[in-house]
């Protein structure tokens, strides 16, 4: 689904053959076109775990860091300079309107049995922006990996206000591609809500760059950024998700690859999508039902009054 930019595959092939290769590989892992280097190209990915509501009102959200190549081979051991930054804002109130740059704080990675985890734990309703950065190298080529996500955790511990203090990461900490979402989330991301994804490297936006969206069953859809480096992505309505609880969510990944010189930049963004709260509201139906009931009720009262009955 594209609302800005043009999904033109041919110019993209011309401009960015390596990205296309990656995407094709992602789609067809066993393709004969896949070269060794591409097969080995890893990407970092944040995968949501099960949220745990603790008895004191604290809510803990585990996020697992995956690093895989297209063959889904775990590449975590190949990573270097792994840093995780978490920015946190109150989930409600005026401060949720993110007018200032986010301040990221370093967050430790918990490594257990080959799995890398970070835990977002809060006693109050918070909005989190999480960014994981790492480097890798394949065949002498430096690969800058980034993974991002935004999430809401509604902690409800009595008296919980400030979160624990940690080392604040300076802007110099940033490297690799950035895949930001505009407008910033004021509530959890929902289906059928347009998301403007901007791809940038440092302060430079990346036009005509492919962004691939993998849905919950890893089916890809490709978009090309416009001249301002933007893509508007509208997650489609999902009847299966609609049937579940409002709290139920599915995970969708956005992936982009950019080569510049000897460096390769691979960025992912994980979206935890919930069903849309308002898009299924049919006001016409509501007003018709309301009006019909009001008419029948009013008519019945008037009829009973005219009949001389008590009403």
């Amino acid at each position, binding site marked *: 689904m594209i609302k800005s930019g043009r999904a033109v595959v041919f110019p993209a092939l011309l401009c960015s053959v390596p990205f296309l290769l990656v995407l094709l590989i992602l789609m067809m892992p066993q393709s004969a076109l896949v070269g060794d280097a591409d097969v080995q190209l890893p990407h970092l990915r944040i995968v949501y775990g099960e949220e745990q509501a603790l*008895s*004191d*009102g604290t809510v803990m959200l585990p996020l697992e860091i995956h690093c895989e190549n297209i063959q889904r081979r775990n590449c975590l051991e190949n990573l270097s300079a792994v840093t995780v930054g978490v920015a946190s804002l109150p989930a409600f109130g005026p401060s949720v309107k993110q007018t200032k740059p986010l301040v990221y704080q370093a967050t430790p990675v918990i490594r257990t049995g080959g799995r890398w985890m970070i835990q977002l734990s809060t006693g109050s309703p918070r909005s989190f922006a999480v960014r994981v950065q790492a480097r890798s190298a394949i065949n002498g080529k430096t690969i800058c990996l980034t993974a991002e996500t935004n999430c809401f955790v509604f902690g409800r511990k009595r008296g919980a206000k400030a979160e624990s203090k940690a080392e604040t990461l300076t802007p110099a900490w940033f490297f690799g591609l950035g895949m930001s979402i505009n407008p910033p989330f004021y509530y959890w991301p929902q289906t059928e809500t347009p998301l403007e994804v901007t791809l940038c490297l440092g302060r430079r936006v990346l036009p005509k760059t492919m962004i691939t969206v993998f849905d919950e069953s890893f089916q890809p859809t490709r978009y090309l950024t416009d001249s301002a480096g933007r893509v508007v992505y509208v997650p489609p309505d999902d009847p299966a998700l609609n049937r579940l*609880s409002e709290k139920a969510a599915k995970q969708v990944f956005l992936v982009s690859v950019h080569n510049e010189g000897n460096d390769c930049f691979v960025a992912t963004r994980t979206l935890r999508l919930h*069903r849309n709260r308002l898009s*299924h509201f049919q*006001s016409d139906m509501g007003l018709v039902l309301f009006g019909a009931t*009001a008419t029948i*009720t009013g008519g019945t009262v008037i009829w009973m009054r005219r009949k001389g009955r008590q009403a």
Partner: protein
Amino acid sequence: MNITNLRAALQLLFFAVLTYGGRAGLRLGHALPCFSCPYVSGCAGQCYLMALQNSFWGMEMPLAAIFTSRGLEALLVLTGFLLLTLLLGKIWCGWICPFGTLQDWIAALRRKLGIRESQWSWMQTDRLKPVKYAFLALLLVIPLFIAHMGLHDDFTLPFCQMCPAKPVMPLFAGRTDYFSIDTTNSITIFMTSLSMVLAAIFLVGMFFKDRFFCIFCPLLALISIFDRIGFVRFSKNVKTCIGCANCQRICPVDIRSVHTETSKQNVMSPECLACMKCAESCPTDGTLSFQWLRWTLFTSSFAGAIRKLAGGRSR
């Protein structure tokens, strides 16, 4: 200023404060014993019924959480509700509740048009009394089923979903969203359709009958549990009552017991809204009176009743 005008002015004030106060930063919490609807964006405080039903402070809480700080917080919200209820009792209903005020405005429109109020038989009135307790039971039980019996989450806040205040009150904040059918799934279709049907019935009912919703209000049922220990008292001097039934006729919820009581002093019934219209209309001095602990808030008088009859012209 007579009590009718005083009440009208205070109702307007509380309506404005509770509906728009949040926009000025006023936060009165989640324990208000009145229909200050949480669906009104920018409301100053929230109706306790939402807290009572929900998954953190209310019935939808898992058992394991009850004896933790979460349980303590639920208890604190409940305590807040109890304190507010004990402090002002039914005055919340008759003087503060924004939804009650809206009902009074709708009834005032009917009166302006000269349309008579619907008359119900005593039996009809009596038969409708338990409905509010049924609503109260539902809003307590359904969250328990969600928390422990696997009932679908979309039944969460069951009363709020049915409550006519949900579509109606946000209109005052410029939101018309809730006059809709939510086609997300079959449960949301059912609940929003029910909401539309009930909103229509109640709005028409409010036009033809004073305080029509209050007859069924589960919050009133909840508040009335504490009538006996509340600070607001409603008493009658049965010896001076001439039995003219002004109190019954004027009562917006058709309470008969104030008129028929011939022995007991306490005449605060579960249906009473403490609007004090009965005391204002009672033509015998000191027969009906509302007290806050031992201080008299309002007492009936012939002069007051005659002033009301003469429309304030006879003093």
